[in-house]
C-alpha cells in the first residue's frame, strides 16, 4: 500500500519523536526559568519574563521557526568569521528545530507553570514554614509536588500542541515524517495515501500521550477529593 515507503516514513516518525521529546525537555527548562523571572519580586526581571511570554505567544510558530532558522543561520555566519571560523555554517535542522520549538513552548509552559504555582493556597507554604522547614524544603516538598498536579492539564495541552507543531519543522528541511511523506507523495503521485498515513501516526502519538498523561494526572491527584456531579 505504501509502495515500500513505509520504512522511510517510520524513520521520519522516529525523528519526529526525538524532536518532540528534546524540544519539550528544553521547553521545561525555559518554562521554569520564565516562571522564575515572572514571579520574581525584582520588577525588571518580571517584566523580562512577561515580555518573553507575551511576544512569543503573539507570533505564529511558523514565523518564529522561519525567523530563528534563517535569521539564526545568518547571524551565525556573520559572527563566526569574527571568531576565526572561515567556512560557511549550515544549521543542523534537528538542532535548530529543537532550539526553536523549545524556545517557543518555553513561553507557553511558563504560563502554565505560573498558573499552577499561583493555584497553590498560600496557607500551604505558611504551614510548611510553621513546621520549621526552610525555604528550599518548602519549595521542593510542598510547592513542587502540588504544582505538578495543577500543571498537568495545561502541560498535556502544551505537549499535544508541540507534537503537532513539529510538522512545521519540515518546512525548513528537517527530514521528519512530514518531509518523508511529501517526498514519497511526489514520487508516487499518491499524496492522499501518504499524508493519511502520517495523520494516523500523529494520531497514535497524541493518543498515547493523552493516555500516559491522564494516568500521571490520576497518580498525582491521589490525595485530592473530587466531588461527584
Amino acid at each position: 500500500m505504501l509502495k515500500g515507503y513505509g520504512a522511510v516514513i517510520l524513520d521520519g516518525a522516529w525523528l519526529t519523536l526525538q524532536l518532540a521529546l528534546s524540544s519539550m525537555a528544553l521547553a521545561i527548562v525555559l518554562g521554569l526559568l520564565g516562571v522564575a523571572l515572572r514571579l520574581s519580586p525584582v520588577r525588571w526581571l518580571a517584566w523580562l519574563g512577561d515580555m518573553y511570554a507575551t511576544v512569543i505567544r503573539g507570533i505564529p510558530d511558523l514565523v518564529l521557526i522561519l525567523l530563528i532558522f534563517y535569521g539564526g543561520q545568518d547571524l551565525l555566519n556573520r559572527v563566526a568569521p569574527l571568531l576565526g571560523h572561515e567556512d560557511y555554517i549550515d544549521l543542523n535542522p534537528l538542532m535548530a528545530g529543537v532550539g526553536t520549538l523549545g524556545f517557543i513552548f518555553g513561553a507557553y509552559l511558563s504560563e502554565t507553570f505560573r498558573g499552577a504555582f499561583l493555584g497553590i493556597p498560600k496557607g500551604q507554604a505558611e504551614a510548611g514554614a510553621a513546621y520549621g522547614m526552610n525555604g528550599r524544603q518548602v519549595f521542593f516538598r510542598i510547592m513542587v509536588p502540588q504544582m505538578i498536579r495543577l500543571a498537568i492539564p495545561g502541560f498535556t495541552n502544551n505537549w499535544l500542541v508541540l507534537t503537532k507543531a513539529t510538522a512545521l519543522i519540515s518546512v525548513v528541511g528537517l527530514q521528519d515524517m512530514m518531509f518523508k511523506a511529501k517526498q514519497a507523495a511526489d514520487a508516487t503521485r499518491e499524496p492522499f495515501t501518504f499524508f493519511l498515513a502520517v495523520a494516523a501516526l500523529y494520531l497514535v502519538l497524541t493518543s498515547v500521550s493523552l493516555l500516559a498523561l491522564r494516568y500521571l494526572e490520576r497518580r498525582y491527584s491521589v490525595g485530592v477529593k473530587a466531588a461527584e456531579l
Partner: protein
Amino acid sequence: MIFDYTVVWEALPLYLGGLLITLKLLAISLFFGLLAAVPLGLMRVSKQPLVNAPAWLYTYVIRGTPMLVQLFLIYYGLAQFEAVRESIVWPLLSSATFCACLAFAINTSAYTAEIIAGSLKATPHGEIEAAKAMGMSRMKMYRRILLPSALRRALPQYSNEVIMMLQTTSLASIVTLIDITGAARTVNAQYYLPFEAYITAGVFYLCLTFILVRLFKMAERRWLGYLAPRKH
C-alpha cells in the same frame, strides 16, 4: 546587525496586501467554523451514543493531527482521486485559497465544538431545573436558556481559539498564498534579509493579536458583565 528600514518600507504594500489576505482567511474560516461548531457541540453533549460518537470521533481526529497534515490532505491529497478531478467542485478544490479556508474551517470547528460542549456542560443545574419547571420543551430550553448562556460563557476560551486561528492562517503561506507570512517569505527570498522580513511579519501579528484581545475584552464586558466581580 543593522535593521534595514528601506527594504521594509519598500515592501510595505506587499505586507499590507498580505494583511488583507490573512484577515480574509481568518474571517471566512472562523465564520464557517463557528457555523459547524454549534451543532457539533450540541451533538457532543448528547447522551445518545449514536449522536455523540460521530462528533467525538470528528473532534478527536481533527484535534489529534497537525493542521499542516490536514491542509496537505486537502490541497495535495484530494487530487489523487480521478473522481475528484472530474467532479464539478474541482475548480474550487484546485484553488489554494479555497483549500486553505476549508482546512482552517474544519480545524477550528473541531476545537470550537469542544469549547461549546464544555460550556454547555458547565451550565448551572439550577438554570436547567428552572427551565424544566417552567414547562419548556427541549428545543425551547436550548434556544432560550442553554445556548445563550453557554455561548456567552464560552467567550474567553473562544478568544484564545480565535488568536490560535490567526496564527494558524500563517500556514497558508506554505500552499503559495501571500498572506503576512507569505509576504515575509517573498521579501526574504528577494533580499536575503531574514531578520527584517520576519520581524516585520511578527510585528504585524503581534498588533493583530493585541487588537483581537482588546475586542474580546470589550465583548466580554458587554456580554459577560453579569459575571464580573462587583466594582466598588
